[in-house]
């Protein structure tokens, strides 16, 4: 047991720190400090800088434009970006690089890799994700969107929901039912579909803050080449599970860094409102610190597994529950510290963050109220807390499943 980083990693860390120092203005506290338009402009420039230094798709093989960084270097990069309050690419890179890109490195054909991967890095292709469906909800496998092969093309009909960043994307990866007669988890395929076609319509969904963060995507005889299937046809469930299972080992320790920064803001809020002497508030703030430290220690454990090449298991469900429920409790504490000030939110907001707002976000009543509202969704998206508890109970503890329903 040893929490120190190897010397080579520390050298790499210094290189990253230098790169950051050269590219952010003095006194930069994080992208949250920028107004939205300014932030977007800054983020685009910063993405180019990362790309130029081969720091964007760090886990891809170098032959496809990846960074070819060692695991520990990937971790160090993530940590330094998190500490500096900088994003690791654009919002869409989560889907393009982390999800479909990584998946293609495992399941893609050579043609797919050579075609798609460089276009993701260059920004020519911008991706979004078509997984959830309105009727399916937490029961992902009950999806209804169908794809039929016709004249060398998949013809797709149905709809997908909770698709973030669809308005910026020109490609979408879509889970479709390709064999309607197969059992629920069989007969599903993962298709790559160009969005610039008449058969696809994107409608924004406005969240409870009034922000159009998500979209519903409608497919009406939408088409894509027969070759644009990832992995074997009708084997999409397995592919999808690989994709969902991409434990971002590199970011194992960065959740705690981000939450720590958020908690520092909360400490400051308590002091500004002179509530930091109230024992009840102190107790809650200390609990928050404790939970962040637990997330940090769990991050070290995840990191150790990542560096050893071990697969994450049901721990991912524990991680999801822990951060989402922490986020709710932390933001409710913020509401309690604000007291009546929360009634009339004031100042700059949280800039549409869907979880912890970006580092540097203003310490205003509006930003915290927005975070508190947003936090309600954290226990719903990406697998509700109820589904996570089923996973932990059944997969980790071996408890029996719900009985099959008689119809």
């Amino acid at each position, binding site marked *: 047991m040893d929490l120190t980083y190897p010397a080579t990693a520390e050298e790499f860390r210094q290189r990253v720190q230098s790169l950051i120092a050269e590219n952010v203005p003095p006194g930069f506290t994080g992208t949250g400090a920028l107004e939205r338009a300014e932030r977007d402009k800054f983020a685009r420039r910063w993405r180019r800088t990362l790309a130029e230094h081969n720091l964007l798709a760090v886990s891809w093989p170098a032959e496809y434009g990846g960074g070819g960084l060692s695991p520990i270097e990937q971790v160090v990069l993530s940590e330094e970006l998190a500490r500096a309050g900088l994003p690791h690419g654009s919002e869409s890179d989560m889907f393009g690089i982390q999800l479909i890109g990584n998946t293609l490195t495992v399941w893609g054909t050579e043609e797919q890799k050579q075609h798609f991967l460089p276009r993701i890095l260059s920004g020519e292709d911008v991706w979004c994700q078509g997984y959830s469906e309105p009727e399916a909800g937490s029961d992902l496998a009950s999806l209804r969107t169908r794809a039929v092969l016709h004249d060398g093309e998949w013809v797709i009909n149905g709809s997908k929901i909770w698709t973030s960043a669809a308005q910026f994307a020109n490609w979408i990866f879509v889970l479709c039912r390709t064999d309607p007669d197969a059992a629920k988890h069989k007969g599903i395929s993962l298709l790559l579909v160009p969005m610039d076609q008449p058969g696809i319509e994107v409608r924004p969904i406005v969240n409870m803050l009034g922000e159009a963060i998500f979209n519903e995507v409608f497919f009406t005889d939408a088409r894509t080449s027969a070759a644009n299937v990832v992995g074997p046809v009708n084997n999409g469930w397995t592919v999808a599970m690989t994709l969902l299972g991409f434990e971002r080992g590199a970011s194992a320790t960065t959740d705690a860094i981000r939450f720590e920064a958020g908690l520092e803001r909360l400490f400051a809020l308590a002091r500004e409102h002179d509530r930091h002497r109230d024992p009840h508030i102190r107790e809650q703030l200390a609990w928050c610190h404790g939970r962040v430290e637990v997330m940090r220690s769990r991050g070290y454990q995840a990191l150790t597994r990542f560096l050893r090449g071990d697969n994450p298991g049901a721990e991912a469900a524990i991680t999801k529950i822990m951060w989402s429920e922490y986020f709710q409790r932390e933001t409710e504490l913020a509401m309690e510290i604000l007291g009546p000030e*929360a009634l009339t939110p004031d100042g700059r907001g949280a800039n549409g963050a869907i979880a912890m707002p970006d580092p540097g976000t203003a310490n205003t009543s509006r930003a915290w109220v927005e975070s508190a509202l947003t936090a309600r969704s954290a226990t719903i998206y990406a697998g509700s807390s109820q589904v996570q508890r089923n996973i932990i109970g059944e997969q980790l503890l071996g408890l029996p499943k719900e009985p099959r329903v008689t119809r």
Partner: protein
Amino acid sequence: MDFALSTEQEDFRVAIRRFVDERSPLSAVREAVQTDAGHDTGLWSRMSQDLGLPGLLIPEKVGGSGATMVDAAMVAEELGRGLVPSPYFATVALGVVPLLATVPSGIGAGVQADVLTEVAAGGCTLTTAMTEPRAANSLAPVSLRATATGGRTTLTGRKIQVIDGHTADKVIVVAVSAEAESRYGFYLVDGDAEGLTRTKVETLDLTRPMAHLELDGVPTTRLGEPMSWSEVERVLDRSATLLAAEMVGGLEGAMTLAVEYAKVRHQFERPIGSFQAIKHRCAEMAVELDAARAASLHAAYLASTDDPGLATAAPVALATAAAGFAFAASWDIQIHGGIGFTWEHDAHLYYRRAKADEVLFGSPRQNWLALADRLGI
């Protein structure tokens, strides 16, 4: 010995409930909050003219219906259930209640009688301005002071988060009395008085508009005699009783949304309400609703009989209803899943109301601590 609504009261409740369901569905609520007033003024005409709601607590002698706090609470509950944005709460809980509490001796005379007559006739809305910037957590959070010069009393200062403050025809300002540092008064101000600037502000609770008020030498009349802060609190306990009732209604509204959805939404080939993770949370909402309604009804009963027990029953009702409402509104979102956090779904309207109501008259924790003081623990 009878702790239940009478048949007449039940009939009245059903009538109000039907009125809310028909005239103010949540789609109409969404439209109303977009208006300048923040409520549907046509709806309010019907509520005040046809149903006589603002006059409920007002004695028959000055044109009201002389009903009890139990009746007024029942109406608050039904309006809360439907999140109806209307001047009812401000006018009755924050207006009529202090007016009645400050009547010098018998009704019939004085400024109170005039205002109450106007309110009962449906032509006047009221509110109370209490909160001051960054002062809300201390014991007697009012420092705005009335000034008496040459037989003329004026108010200068700032009040924030005044419910319906931008539309109320008359505003009652809680201020330190001009006479003595530790005495307070309810001061009546005209909504269009010179020197009064009212700014509608963005609110967490989209269905309860608020305004910040700037007062610059605004002429005013004190209602009744100066009083101690604890006498002010006795008046506010009555107002709080109506807020608790509103929250009980809100709790029921949020619970109903959750339960109905849990019956029809299917996941994993079953209605989600058949899963204990959902069913048991709904059952807990029902337990909290039952508790909150019992506490709220008891407080209203004590208020209706001028029982001093209200001083401890009011914080119990507030804290119980607030915690239950916040619980139900949070779980309502969770049970709805994805659509629960969209703008177009009504779950967030209840959640916003719940989180706002939770601090409007002090947080549950503050109310429990106030109760501990009042119990002499």
